[in-house]
C-alpha cells in the first residue's frame, strides 16, 4: 500500500508545547514541507525568536540558532553575509518582530538581505501571558490593555506587510493565514515562493501569517477562528503585497 501522507523529514518527531487551537504547529509543518520539497534541509539554518516559538528549534531537524528578542533578522544577516550558500530563515512573532525588533526587520528588508522571515501575527504577546502587541486590534482586551486597546494612547495596529512593502528595495512580501483549511494551501504556496526567491538569490522575503491565540484571547479554538476571520482579516488583508517582479 502506498504511503500518501507522512511527517516531513525536516519536522522532528516530537510533541510541541503549543496550546490547543494554536496555529504554530500548522505553520511549522508548512515550513518543513517546503524545505523537504526544495531539498534544502542540509543547507538550511533556522533562527528561533523569543516568544512562543522560542523552542521552535526542538521541532525541526536541521541547524538552528536561538536569537534574542527581536534580533533574529540581524543574526540572519550575519549568517547570510558570511555563508551566502546557506538558506536562512527567521521565525518570529508580532511582539518580537513588530515591537522590539522593528528596527532589525526594517533594515534587513531594506538592505535586501537574502533570507526569509515567517512572521506569525496573532495580535498578542503569547509566551509572556497575553500582553498588548503593536498588532493588537482596537478595543482588544489583553493583560496590559484590560479595558481594550485604546488607539488614542497606543495608536492603530501596525500592518507589517504593507509597511515593508512600502520600501523601495525589491522584495517578496505576502500576508496569508492558516486559520481554515481553505487558506492553508495558499499560505504554503507563499512560503514556498519566499524560500524560492531566496534560493534564486533574488531578494528578501517575508510571509506574514495571521494566526490565532485562543489561550490569550480567552476564546475556544473555534471562537478564535471566527474572531480572527471577522476582526483581523478585514484589517489585515491577505495576498502578495510586493514581488521582485512588480517592485
Amino acid at each position, binding site marked *: 500500500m502506498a504511503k500518501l501522507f507522512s511527517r516531513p523529514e525536516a519536522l522532528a518527531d516530537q510533541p510541541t508545547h503549543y496550546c490547543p487551537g494554536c496555529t504554530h504547529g500548522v505553520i511549522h509543518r508548512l515550513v518543513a514541507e517546503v524545505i523537504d520539497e526544495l531539498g534544502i*534541509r*542540509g*543547507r*538550511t*539554518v533556522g*533562527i*528561533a525568536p523569543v516568544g512562543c516559538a*522560542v*523552542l521552535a*528549534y526542538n521541532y525541526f*531537524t*536541521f*541547524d*538552528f*540558532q*536561538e*536569537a*534574542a528578542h527581536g*534580533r533574529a533578522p*540581524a*543574526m*540572519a*544577516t*550575519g*549568517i547570510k*553575509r*558570511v*555563508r551566502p*550558500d*546557506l538558506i536562512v530563515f527567521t521565525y518570529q512573532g508580532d511582539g518580537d518582530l513588530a515591537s522590539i525588533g522593528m*528596527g*532589525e526587520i526594517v*533594515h534587513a528588508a531594506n538592505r535586501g538581505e537574502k533570507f526569509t522571515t515567517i512572521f506569525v501575527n496573532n495580535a498578542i504577546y503569547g509566551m509572556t501571558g497575553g500582553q498588548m502587541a503593536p498588532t493588537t486590534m482596537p478595543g482588544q482586551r489583553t493583560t496590559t490593555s484590560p479595558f481594550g486597546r485604546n488607539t488614542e494612547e497606543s495608536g492603530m495596529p501596525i500592518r507589517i506587510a504593507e509597511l515593508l512593502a512600502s520600501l523601495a528595495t525589491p522584495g517578496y512580501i505576502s500576508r496569508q493565514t492558516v486559520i481554515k483549511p481553505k487558506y492553508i494551501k495558499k499560505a504554503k504556496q507563499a512560503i514556498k515562493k519566499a524560500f524560492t526567491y531566496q534560493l534564486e538569490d533574488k531578494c528578501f522575503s517575508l510571509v506574514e501569517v495571521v494566526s490565532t491565540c485562543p489561550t490569550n484571547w480567552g476564546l475556544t479554538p473555534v471562537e478564535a477562528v471566527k474572531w480572527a476571520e471577522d476582526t483581523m482579516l478585514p484589517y489585515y488583508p491577505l495576498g502578495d503585497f510586493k514581488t521582485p517582479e512588480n517592485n
Partner: protein
Amino acid sequence: MGKVLMKGNEAIAEAAIRAGCLNYFAYPITPQSEVAEYLSRRMPEVGGVFLQGESEVAVSYMIFGAAAAGARVFTTSSSPGISLMSEGVSYIIGAQCPAVFVNIMRGGPGLGGILPSQADYNQATRGIGHGDGHLLVLAPASVQEAVEMVMQAFPLAEKYRNPVMVLGDGLIGQMMEPVEFPDHLKTEPSDKDDWATTGMDTRKSDKRNLVRSLFLDPVQLNENNLALKRKYEQMKKEEVRFEQYNTDSDYKVLIVSYGTMSRVCKTAIDMLGEQGFAVGLVRPLTVFPFPEEAVNKAAAKKGCEAVLSVEMSMGQMVDDIERSVRGSCPVHWYGKCGGEVPTPEEVIEAVKQLM
C-alpha cells in the same frame, strides 16, 4: 612588509585581516570610525565582508549569527556603542561562540566625551552584559601591541569559544606609530564542525548543530554556567599577561597601570629615578584575567609601602589591585576621568605624596 607608520584604528583594521578575519560588521562612533572607513575599502580587496549595521545592538547580533555559523568575525566600537552591544555579547558568551570586540574607550557616563578614557574597565572585566560570564580582555599600550593583541584575540576566542575584547583607550586608536605586522593566520575555527551552524551538508553529517543560550532546565543552565566558569579558571591559569618595569629596584611605591597611561607612568618612573626615587610598575596586559599573583608579589616585596593605581578612570582598577595585594600595603588611586591624559609631572607629584 617592514615597518609602516599607521594610525591605531587603521592598524587594528589591517591586523584583523592579517588574522584571517574577513568578516566585519560595525556602526560608526567616535573615536574609532576609521576602522570602519578603512575596512569599507579594504574588505572588497580581500574578498571579505563589510557591513555597516543599523545600530550597535543589531551589529552585536550580526556578529553572533556569523560567529555561530563558524566564521571568524569581529567588530569595533567605543564606550556607548559597547554598552549597546553588551546584550549581544551576553548571548554570545552563553552560547559559547568565538568573536572579537574592540573597544576604543571614550569618556562616560552617558555621552561623556570623545577624548581618551579607561572608564570601561569595570564593564569590560565584569562580563559586560547580564548573567554569569566574562570576556577575555587584552589591553594594549601601543599601536604595535594593539596589532599583536588583535591578531592574538582570534585564536584565543576560538580556543575558549568565548568573546575576546581588545580594550584600548582613545589614544591607541587615534595616534600614529610605526608598526610591523606578524604573519597571516588561518581563516576559521578548526573545530567548527562540532558546534557551528554551517549546514549539515557541509559536515556530511545528519547531526544538526544548535546554537543557543536558552536552558530552561535549571540543572542544564547550571552545567552550562559551570562550564563557563571552568573556562575562566583556565584563562586565569594560562592567559595572564603582564609586564614589570623597574621592579628590580628597591621601590617604596609600586604603580599599577595599563594602556596609554602606563607609558606615561614609565616616563615618570624614569624621571623619578633620575631624582633618586625608585618606583616599580606592574602593567597588566590582560585585565581579565587580572595578573593577581604578579601584583601580589610586587606589592609584598620588602620595602614596598604603597601601591598606586594610575588610571584614566575614577579608580575602577583599585578593586582588582586590593584583591591581589590582600592587605600587604595600602592601595591608592591617581588619575583623571574627563579625557585628559595625566602628565608624567602629575604622576610624579601623586607618587611623592605617598613617600
